[in-house]
């Protein structure tokens, strides 16, 4: 299997060979920063098109068709337009917080994106509390949404922000517990080690029953975390016009829009990392020939493929299910999902202690 580490260490050696160490690190940081931002923008645009096309197909439609071949350039047109659209600043708002909020939202999702392992050797930083860090950063996003709702000085945005606060804080528990279940199973929080631990089978197979339950809980909680249907209450188009970002225009709204799609990719990426082996190909112990064939597919394709598949599922039920009500949503989390995930954690602990896993 190709190791992207060869490229990165070659680049590192090239730089350290001709300049002092601090300068090399600086240049590397800049290069990586630019790469992350470019990936971010491209991925978000891809996701917007992906969802628009998918939902069109669910609904017996064609989706964007006329801008570029099969509408491929549609999202670029949208981007150009939204970049130069007027930014409206309102009377009676908290100007500083109003402008800060979209940046908070987008920053947190950029940082999360930077933590994902894209392929073998294609990871920006590897440290021992990797997955914990990702979870921590994801909580910054909710702050942005709360600020956006509060600073807009509008009743709709305020209700949207309150809903989102209640929703994200509650569902973060289930999300965290689902991840902890796997951390317990793997015995590590290091992202790289998590992937390598799935060399002989993905966690969802190795951990069987509790891992599958954790996976389902994770997908539900992640949908809520990303404010997508059926948990799209903070936006709730048909109740609150546009929810917390009602008053945002131009690229500020664009940031919310991009972050929403990127968060979808990020939660799918984490799901693929925690349950489906990250970039690790499908390996079945004993089937060496099969494993060898699987290794031929590049690791980045594995990672993106899994992430896109999970996103597909999430998009699928967004467009099919009606929206839940705020009390139903909270009741579902606190009365069912969280106790269930706690029980699942105990179950996993028992399985690990007794070695009832592959």
């Amino acid at each position: 299997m190709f190791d992207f580490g060869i490229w990165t260490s070659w680049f590192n050696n090239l730089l350290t060979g001709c300049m002092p160490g601090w300068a090399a690190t600086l240049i590397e940081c800049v290069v990586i920063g630019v790469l992350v931002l470019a990936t971010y923008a491209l991925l978000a645009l891809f996701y917007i098109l992906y969802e628009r096309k998918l939902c069109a197909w669910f609904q017996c439609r064609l989706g964007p068709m006329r801008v570029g071949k099969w509408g491929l350039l549609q999202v670029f047109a949208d981007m150009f337009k939204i970049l130069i659209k007027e930014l409206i600043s309102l009377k009676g708002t908290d100007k500083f917080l109003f402008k800060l909020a979209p940046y908070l939202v987008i920053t947190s999702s950029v940082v999360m994106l930077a933590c994902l392992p894209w392929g073998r050797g294609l990871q920006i930083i590897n440290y021992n509390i990797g997955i914990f860090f990702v979870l921590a950063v994801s909580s910054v996003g909710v702050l942005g949404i709360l600020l956006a709702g509060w600073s807009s000085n509008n009743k709709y945005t305020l209700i949207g922000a309150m809903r989102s606060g209640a929703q994200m804080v509650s569902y973060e528990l289930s999300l965290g517990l689902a991840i902890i279940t796997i951390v317990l199973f793997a015995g590590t929080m290091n992202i790289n080690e998590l992937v390598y631990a799935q060399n002989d089978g993905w966690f969802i197979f190795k951990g069987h029953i509790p891992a599958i339950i954790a996976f389902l809980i994770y997908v539900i909680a992640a949908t809520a975390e990303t404010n997508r249907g059926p948990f799209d209450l903070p936006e709730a188009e048909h109740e609150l016009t546009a929810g917390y970002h009602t008053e945002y225009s131009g690229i500020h709204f664009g940031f919310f829009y991009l972050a929403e799609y990127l968060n979808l990719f990020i939660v799918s990426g984490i799901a693929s990392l925690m349950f489906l082996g990250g970039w690790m190909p499908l390996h079945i112990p004993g089937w060496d020939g099969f494993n060898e064939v699987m290794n031929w597919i590049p690791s980045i394709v594995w990672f993106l493929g899994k992430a896109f598949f999970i996103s597909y599922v999430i998009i699928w039920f967004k467009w099919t299910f009606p929206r839940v009500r705020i009390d139903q949503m909270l009741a579902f989390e606190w009365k069912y999902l969280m106790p269930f995930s706690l029980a699942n954690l105990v179950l996993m602990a028992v399985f690990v202690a007794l070695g009832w896993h592959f």
Partner: protein
Amino acid sequence: MSDIKERIRKICPSAVFEDGEILFVEVSEPEWYGFAKALRDDLKFDLLSAVVGMDWKDSLGVVYYLTSTSRNWEMIVVKVAVADRENPMIHSVSDLWHVANFQEREVFDFYGIKFINHPDMRRFFLRNDWVGYPLRKDYDANPEINPIRLTDEINEDDSVSYVEDKDGKVKAVKKNVFEKEDYVVNIGPQHPSTHGVMRFRAAVDGETVKKVDVVSGYIHRGIEKLSEGMTYPQILHFTDRMDYMSAHQNRHCLCMCIEKALGLEVPRRAQVIRVMMDELMRISSHLLSFGCTAMDLGATTAFFYGFREREMVLDIFEKTCGARMSMNYNVIGGVIADLHPDFQKDVKALIEIMPSRLKEYHKVFTGNVIAQNRMRNVGMLSKEDAVNYAITGPSGRGSNWSCDCRKKHPYSIYAELDFNEVLEDGCDSFARYMVRMREIEESCKILAQLVDQIPDGPIRAQVPKLIKLPEGRWYQQVEASRGVFGVYIESDGQKNPYRVHFQSPCFNLVGVMDLTCQGYMIADLITIGAALDFVIPDIDR
């Protein structure tokens, strides 16, 4: 009828009678409230079908149409008039029939008649700074008096109530619509799920709705006033544009009312075509309603499925009538054009495909656990309230109230047809939704009976070139997609009507919003609105 007459004479000796299709009683204003109470309690006229404000030049007044649901839907007309044009006052009956609450506000808006003891005497359709009462015959329509104002209305919360004290003195009492510390969320007029330009102002406690104030009139186009200046055939096109989802039924109703006045016999072929068009319209309307309910609840895909089949119905309309909406198909004496050769084939295709498509809807939306939880036990409306608020149509039948005009006052050829009145006893939003879905099946059943039985013959009766109605008043009801639609025509023998009133079902539906939303959440307000399924231009007219 004579029995009723006797009993009324006992209650109110001074009442003046006039025989006709419906018994007509005139009472004087001071006796009116007591008489109304007796009508409701003793004579069991429990449904107030229509309230029509009138200006007879020498006097102003109101014509009430009452129905007794327990006595075979017998109707009675009561006229109350006052001579005072400066400060006309009539006792309110909004405490007897709650439906009168908004109806009386409409009359106040149009004629300036103040209703004594009415809880909230604000204008209903027009801006609160409007000068004059537009439906009075002496209204000055000079645009300089009421120019296009681009400012907001002020003092929106101020209301007034004319309260009568023990000695019979009437005093104006200032009121406020909301409490001082209420947190009022404004929903509409531009809002995606008010189905048009309706405006609700909801006082909320957290997310729980405490009170809903309905502000209407954002699409009030003054159709009734416009009609007074037009000849009868010219009025017809307004009906298509009121409730555009019941265009055929509404127009059918107006045509029947005029035909009744003229004593015109409509050819059988035209009758059959009219009924088939009505039922197709009902299917189209319920499909739209299904789609919008699904979309308001957040299930976008179901919306597209509903619209897919609706296009089939629209195709049938387009081939025969020449338009997808605003068909302008019924005319006085029949229909305007003969059926398209493909009509029977297309209708058969539709009937054939509908059952499987309905199954698909139920799979994708109705059976969904979230949809069930969102709609069940939301917006409860008891049968008594439904009668009192005159909630007819699928919404009323969702409260297990048998109120189908096609069965109660069979018109056209409905008496010969075999179909069931769909009833659900859930009394909640889900029941209303289910009534609509099941009514699609019933409409298909009616279409299946008729599609091969369309008789040959003329499509239109011979109608005089200049249509003049004799002096008198007529009232006709049909079952439109959303409930009982009524047309009131009063003629003074001219080529244009003296007064036309459209009693629209949606007007009553919106009147029940406050009652049904209280104690539910903001999200439920959307659900309730979607399940009641009102069309705003029908409310505002």
